[in-house]
């Protein structure tokens, strides 16, 4: 059953990303997600980016559903179900958060709840998400094109930072290839890691098998996975499943 919530505010974060604020009395954990239905358009999974009394979805425009969502304004409605899945596990270890593109939206409520340094990565400076959100801590910026901060990929900056600081855990969310690289770094350096994965998702409740990766269901076993699970995901960063369930190269 869906709950109908009203959009109370829309904030344009980047040229392709907007945050939609609403009230809902569910109590999500950082890393959990909801299914958003826009009647007659589409239904899609969306992680929560603000988890207080006023909640938020921070949505990148990627397809028909999210494009329609970007047209919505204050006073418009969203049909939601959730929260679903397993979120991040808060750790006492010295943490580095690494968000790529809109992946930063998933990490943000976790960062609000625990200390640690932050890497915000994007293709270009205009797409750096939440660069002003995390006051009073070290925030490193990285852009693929070098238009701001470190010039290069997020994992290259992470390798550099690991020479400077003794981080004990990396929390990451972003493009799968970026996460694969960061997980490999964590494994080789003996650092703990948690990653929030994204796969083509249909039911969101653990029965249709669309989002499964090597026997793990992203929708209920994840979307956040821990190191002992991530090391077993041989398809991560290599193969995905398409809408028909075919295993195809990423």
């Amino acid at each position: 059953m869906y709950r109908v919530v009203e959009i109370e505010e829309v904030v344009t974060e980047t040229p392709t990303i907007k945050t939609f604020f609403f009230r809902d009395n569910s109590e999500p954990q950082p890393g959990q997600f909801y299914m958003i239905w826009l009647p007659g358009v589409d239904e899609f999974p969306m992680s929560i980016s603000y988890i207080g009394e006023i909640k938020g979805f921070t949505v990148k425009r990627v397809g028909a559903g999210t494009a329609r969502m970007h047209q919505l304004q204050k006073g418009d409605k969203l049909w939601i179900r959730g929260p679903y899945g397993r979120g991040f596990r808060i750790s006492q270890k010295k943490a580095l958060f690494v968000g790529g593109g809109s992946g930063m939206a998933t990490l943000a409520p976790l960062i609000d709840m625990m200390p640690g340094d932050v890497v915000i990565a994007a293709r270009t400076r205009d797409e750096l998400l939440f660069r002003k959100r995390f006051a009073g801590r070290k925030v490193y910026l990285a852009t693929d094109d070098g238009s701001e901060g470190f010039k290069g990929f997020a994992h290259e900056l992470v390798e550099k930072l690991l020479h400077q600081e003794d981080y004990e855990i990396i929390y990451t969310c972003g493009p799968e290839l970026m996460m694969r690289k960061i997980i490999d770094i964590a494994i080789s350096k003996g650092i703990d890691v948690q990653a929030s994965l994204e796969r083509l998702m249909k039911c969101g409740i653990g029965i249709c098998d669309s989002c499964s990766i090597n026997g793990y269901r992203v929708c209920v076993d994840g979307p956040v996975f821990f190191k002992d699970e991530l090391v077993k995901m041989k398809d991560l960063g290599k193969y995905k499943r398409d809408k028909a369930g075919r295993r195809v190269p990423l």
Partner: protein
Amino acid sequence: MLSFTLNGLRFKNPLILASGILDESGETMLKVIEHGAGGVVTKSIGRKPREGYENPVIYELPYGLLNAIGLANPGIENYGEEIKVAKKGGVPVIGSVFGSTVEGFVYLAKKMEEYGADAVELNLSCPHAKGYGMEVGTDIALVEEIVEGVKKEISIPVWAKITPNTENLVKIAKAVEGADALVLINTVKAMAIDIEAGMPVLSNKFGGLSGPCIKPIGVRAVYEVYREVEKPIIGVGGITYGRDAIEYLMAGATALQVGTAVYLRGIEVFSLIAKEMEEWMEKHGYAHFTELIGLAQVR
């Protein structure tokens, strides 16, 4: 207490994963087997890759699930590897197939046999795919030809999964009696409308209802058919707890399938139900579950 042989296949318990739930990839089926399933039926596979319907494809209700996935599947030519992986679990793997013609079903069933499936389940009952499933499965002459056609061409057992969405349940059951076992029921054709949106929730509008709310329909179907056909019946529809399994056995089921309960109780539901069945049987003085089959039939 729970192990048995059906159609020459050895099962450690009668709780088989129903088609359509966590059974598209071999690795996921292995997970289900690890959690105690006595066997697994694959997602229904057709000739060509099929993406299925757009979201929403599922709707959660207080009493079950409504779905119209739309027979999404990778296509039979891409499915050999998944069967091979699932077979590593050491329990029977039953390949579910859907088609619209005798030739179509025969082609798919032969492929499943070639891939190493232990049996084939003919989907004659999906309620939400145009030209397939129930639309085929309510044509009494056609289902008989499909079952006979497939039986002639393969040597592994053939199961026929039939629909409850008909007034001709017993006639259809008799028409498919050439199969080695009958599976009933598939989901019940249904719809849900979101009154705030003023439209059906599922993108396909119609879907199949499953879960606890359809158990009485399944029990009734098994009970009715048991009296009329000689072949073993595999009962499915709303089995969530051990007591539901016992109820289906008493109606006349020889084996059982579990689907929506995976959503309700988690993937470990197979071992949970098995334990509950054993506890109930011990308490009531039954040594083996087969003693319960058809017990509630009034003769």
